[in-house]
């Protein structure tokens, strides 16, 4: 209780009435709250040890989850704004709704689970952590994703992806399940893997048409392990039957060259 008072004292008195603590869960009513205020509240309560946060009536507030450096779990109800989890380092965000553009932008560590769909630029330049999306995603998902040693970003898309999936991708894993497609249907995605020079895109059945510079291959033993681990986690989060999802053929899309544009300016 003493701790709670200390934390509340650090918060702008005008905002205190929007926050309450129930059973160790911090509940924030973000209705009409400015995004900077919301993020500053999050910073204060997380710095002071909050482990569980619920934010209600979220409507367009940007950058939620950024600058927290903790493994706090944040449940979001509503539609969070652009760059959800940008530069995020550690938290787990659970969104009950759709995410907008730029979700997971340059994310370093942590997890984002979206019970809905996302806009464009999901996991732009992502360098670590995990993103699970139940439904569809927009344009340029995984653009510039990268990996380094043990830092390896993973994203799983339950539905379909749009154009430029994995554009300039340099590392990490994207798994597209296409669970909402009927058999024989494809994602309406052009230019998949344009400029891709690292990382892997997995697909469940042949639902992606690859662009120039990439090739489709059968999956091997190690691929299977990666896919199974990701699908397991996906099914656990969205309450799906693992065997059902796995009962399909998986393929992988990889770049043909590590330097697709190496000769672009050489003659």
């Amino acid at each position, binding site marked *: 209780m003493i701790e709670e008072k200390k934390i509340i004292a650090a918060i702008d008195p005008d905002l205190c009435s929007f926050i309450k603590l129930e059973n160790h869960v911090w509940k924030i009513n973000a209705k009409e709250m400015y995004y900077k205020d919301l993020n500053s509240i999050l910073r204060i309560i997380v710095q002071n040890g909050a482990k569980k946060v619920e934010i209600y009536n979220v409507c367009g507030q940007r950058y939620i989850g950024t600058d927290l450096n903790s493994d706090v779990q944040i449940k979001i109800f509503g539609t969070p704004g652009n760059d959800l989890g940008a530069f995020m380092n550690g938290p787990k965000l659970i969104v009950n709704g759709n995410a907008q553009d730029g979700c997971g932008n340059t994310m370093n560590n942590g997890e984002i689970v979206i019970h809905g769909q996302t806009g464009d630029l999901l996991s732009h330049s992502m360098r670590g952590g995990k993103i699970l999306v139940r439904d569809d995603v927009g344009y340029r998902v995984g653009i510039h994703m990268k990996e380094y040693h043990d830092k390896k970003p993973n994203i799983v898309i339950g539905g379909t992806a*749009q154009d430029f999936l994995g554009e300039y991708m340099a590392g990490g894993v994207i798994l597209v399940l296409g669970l909402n497609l009927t058999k024989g249907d494809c994602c309406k995605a052009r230019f998949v893997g344009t400029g891709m020079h690292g990382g892997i895109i997995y697909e469940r059945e042949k639902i992606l048409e690859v662009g120039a510079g990439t090739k489709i291959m059968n999956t091997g033993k190690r691929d299977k392990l990666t896919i199974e681990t990701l699908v397991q986690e996906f099914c656990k989060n969205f309450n799906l039957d693992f065997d059902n999802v796995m009962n399909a053929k998986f393929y992988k899309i990889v770049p043909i060259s590590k330097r697709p544009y190496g000769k672009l300016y050489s003659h």
Partner: protein
Amino acid sequence: MRNLTKTNNPYGDDKDFSGCSIFGMMNLEGNLFSSDKIVKAITNMHDRGNGQGGGFAVYGIYPTFKDYYAFHIMYLSRHAKEKTDKTLAAYFNIIYDEEMQTKPANVSNPPLVWRYFVQPRKIRPKGKLIEDYVLETVMKINTEIKNSFIFSSGKNMGVFKGVGFPEDVADFFCLEDYKGYLWTSHGRFPTNTQGWWGGAHPFNILDWTVVHNGELSSYGINKRYLEMYGYKCTMQTDTEVLAYAVDLLMRKQNLPINIVTRILAAPLWNEIDLMKPKEQEMLRTLRQTYSSLLMNGPFSVIIAHHGEMIGLTDRIKLRPLVAGTKADILYLSSEEAAVRLVSPKLDKFWSPRGGEPVIGKLTNPLLFAESSILEENRT
């Protein structure tokens, strides 16, 4: 903006990250509604703009004067008004005119804004369409009279725009007093040209309006092409060409919207190569005929005229656009949150693909048609 030093702002993060915001809302049954929802929605995207421009287009607002052209004119000097009044009187019968109703608001340097309801005089040459006569006069005033700009020239519709955030512009023009069945709005973050009252969106000619997020790098080519057809660009902003292009293609040349979108956001050549021979032939012809009307660069736009609202992005979707429907209402927006704010539960919500239009049409297309057209339909 709230003073953050009180709470915690260790990084001084008051930098602007922006992009324009667009929002459109149309009642497909033609029922009129007030400004509160659209103002609320565009205000939710406040941070996309920077206060250098905001505006609204409303359709169905002047039922009493619906048969007359409603001109909204901004004057940067008294002298400009005197000159414009003379020119207007030479070409039109002025049925009614008044100073636009405004109130003090957080907008910068408002000009004098006047509203006229006019009827073209009978002196117009035989064979010339009334619309072309009006268009030519608008172009004449905008180019020849200094400090005078007609920024709205359609029937039973109006554009309200200025320098400020959209919510402030709404305040300034007392938009709460108007009702329409189709509203579009814009919050501006100018990139290439200065923010001034004429440069705010929507851009308009006759009853066509455009709000735009992005940048038309093809502006120069588009502008020169449109000049051949008598359209003169005076508002110093790229978006203007789009308004004139749709007027040329849809009104003058009477092309259907699904062709027009394929001119403005033409499929890439390598996509055309993969199409069926007949389709290939058509698209090649369109790209060759209208190469100067291809809108290059990133854009998402909402185009509107009586009876129709169209959302469109560039071919590779470099700017955002989402769409949603709830009962009779179609929403188009830069961000989903703005739609959810005014309509939390939607019947349908989707992200349109690049270059593919979202089209909202009145269920009864004749509802707001001009009396003369209704007459023709009856006989």
